[in-house]
């Protein structure tokens, strides 16, 4: 990818406004930085992203455990899930704006409604797969309901929550930017839309590249968090013998 950028830098003509060379992107970003627009935009986008992802993890794992452990709830809400998870995020923005206005809770609502699905579905199947012997163990050792939840159930579904989060994180970032571009209230998405409407291509490229880097960092952080739990996961540990 670096090689491609170098080639781009060498062969891009400064006369064509559509494909500015990468050095120009950096200059544009630096100009945005000094004008004081870049940092607040990044902060808004990142905090919206983090808030939405955190909320998605909480909602997705709680609902996932409930649906995974209760046949009744699963049968009641299963069909609604199939409908809900295919709902396109962009289509929900106008509705959310109507109801909640141009607020950050509106952004949060739209993003969470899209990004908690992979977490919910993964957690649900993880909760369904918990072995009966493990649950019976909790019963014969007379663990309380609460103890069973956080000592047996939650750790059992943690790998599934993690897997769901890895799928959800890039989606979350994409939807945050999408909402920002559509509503033009704040954040990097708004800056991209503003610069684009003024036909300033270098800042647009620069900001898009910046979101790409953010996505990479997020992915890296999530898989690093996954390694923290590896030590007890026999399927991931080498040399496990039976």
């Amino acid at each position, binding site marked *: 990818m670096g090689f491609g950028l170098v080639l781009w830098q060498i062969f891009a003509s400064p006369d064509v406004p559509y494909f500015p060379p990468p050095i120009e992107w950096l200059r544009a970003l630096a100009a945005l930085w000094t004008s004081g627009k870049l940092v607040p935009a990044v902060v808004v986008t990142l905090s919206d992203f983090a808030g939405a992802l955190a909320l998605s993890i909480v909602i997705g794992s709680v609902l996932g455990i409930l649906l995974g452990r209760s046949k009744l709830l699963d049968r009641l809400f299963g069909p609604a899930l199939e409908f809900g998870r295919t709902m396109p995020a962009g289509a929900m923005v106008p509705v959310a704006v109507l109801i909640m206005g141009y607020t950050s809770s509106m952004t949060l609502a739209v993003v969470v409604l899209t990004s908690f699905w992979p977490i919910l579905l993964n957690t649900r199947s993880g909760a369904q797969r918990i072995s009966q012997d493990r649950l019976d163990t909790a*019963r014969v050792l*007379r663990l309380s309901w609460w*103890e069973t939840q956080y000592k047996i159930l939650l*750790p059992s579904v943690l790998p599934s929550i993690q897997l769901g989060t890895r799928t959800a994180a890039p989606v979350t970032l994409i939807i945050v930017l999408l909402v920002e571009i559509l509503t033009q209230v704040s954040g990097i998405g708004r800056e991209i839309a503003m610069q684009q409407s003024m036909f300033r291509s270098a800042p647009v490229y620069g900001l898009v590249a910046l979101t790409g880097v953010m996505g990479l960092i997020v992915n890296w952080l999530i898989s690093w968090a996954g390694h923290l739990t590896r030590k007890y996961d026999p399927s991931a540990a080498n040399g496990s013998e039976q």
Partner: protein
Amino acid sequence: MTDSSGESALAFRCRALSVDLGVGEARRRIIEDLDLEVPRRQFLCILGESGVGKTTLLRVFGGLVDATADSVLELNGERVVGPPQGAVFVFQNYAASLLPWRTARRNVELGLEATTSKAARQQRVTAALRQVDLADHADDYPWQLSGGMQQRVQLARALAVEPDLLLMDEPFGALDAMTRENLQVELRRIQQTSGATVIFITHDVDEAVFLADRIIVLKGKPASIGIDVMSRLPAERDQVRTKESPEYLELRHRVYEAVSRRSGGGKE
């Protein structure tokens, strides 16, 4: 049978125990009209062909499965509704029962965390691990231990709650022959020192004859007691000498006949 402690000598009792399993059309009577009294400190083995309902019976004893409404089931004179205090179940599938994210020590601790202070807990966990000869592996995770060691962790977890009654569902069924024989000797020794009553399910006649003070063979559909015999072997058991003794061979002969013959022997 008398007990020196002066308490009731009966640990466990069931009267007219029947069990139905399944839903709607598929509902079947698995066990019918079973009467059983188990005195304290007895090592009882329940034998039977696979599918006869041994595991179901043990799960009923452990309060994991309900018996029919008119069945009477008592542990230490108290009715069993749900998993009773003082009884612990040991599962055949140790890999599913142990928590992979906890070390051996933390797994053994699991049943004590809500009820025991930290200091007392440490003491009991250490003692339990020493009983099963795993003191050196307290900080290993289950996947670092062999199958036999994992099953010993599960046994230690059961012992740590100081149960009156150990319910063991073919606990050595998934282990190799050598590990199995060692664990049989250990279990017998542990049972003698801890004074727990043990109800042990197996389909292995040799295992039952070696371990038991008393053997029950389940027969029929729905299942009921085929034969009920007391062992005349000495309390101390040894894989070589015990298995050469005439009492062992005689009991083994008798139990084998009862298990293999469909009609079964008479009740003693």
